[in-house]
């Protein structure tokens, strides 16, 4: 579990905008290092966003997502709602964060 995952949620006109930054190497498994060795794949595979415990977005991500993925979502909601995000990478490492909508 990582505490360095950053999340921000803001409400405007009944729509919540959520921004998430996940510090992650996001290696596709296709890149080679200076010695020509293939860097093993290490990327985020799955994600889920819940609003007050109810799932709103489910994600399947491929290796083409950039290093330190910066993701943004929009859904209906109001100030004071709780937004929770969970991500899982291919090493079964879990990243989670929770915030209250501003």
């Amino acid at each position: 579990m990582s505490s360095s995952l950053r999340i921000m949620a803001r409400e405007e006109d009944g729509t919540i905008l959520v921004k998430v930054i996940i510090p992650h190497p996001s290696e596709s498994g296709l890149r080679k290092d200076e010695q020509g060795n293939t860097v093993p794949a290490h990327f985020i595979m799955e994600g889920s966003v819940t609003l007050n415990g109810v799932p709103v977005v489910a994600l399947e991500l491929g290796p083409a997502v950039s290093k330190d993925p910066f993701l943004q979502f929009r859904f209906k909601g109001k100030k004071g709602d709780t937004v929770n995000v969970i991500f899982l990478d291919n090493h079964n490492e879990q990243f989670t964060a929770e915030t209250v909508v501003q």
Partner: protein
Amino acid sequence: MKRRQFLAAGTIFTAFMALQPVALLAEWNAKNFQHGSLKKAFINTLGTDEIAISDQITIVAPPIASDSSSVPVEVISSMKGDQLYLFVEKNFKPLVFKCTLLDNSLPWFSLNIKMKESSALFAVVRSDGKFFMANVRVEIQSQAC
């Protein structure tokens, strides 16, 4: 049951419940993320490669990107949809993401992606069981991945 035992059991149960949502996440389908052509990726992921072009889907991406390892892409759909997809034609694995929209979520998603070379991007939206798409071209100025 003593209070201490009860608390311990409660902690274990809570920890177990906290792990549950991960198991309930969208099942990552390796077939969707296979190497291959765009056409093959369409068939693997959507089950068809005949997709109607719609002007209600917008992809916001820079026409010329200087850094191929981080290209900001935004997919916006003005039609209601329950699934969003993004494909990069020239990538080894064309599918970038599959986004399942449940209750209350709006068909809008933004992220940074890696691109192997200059390519067309295809955004696909599933609406009422039918697929619609839009495409946009991004030129890469320097190689990074």
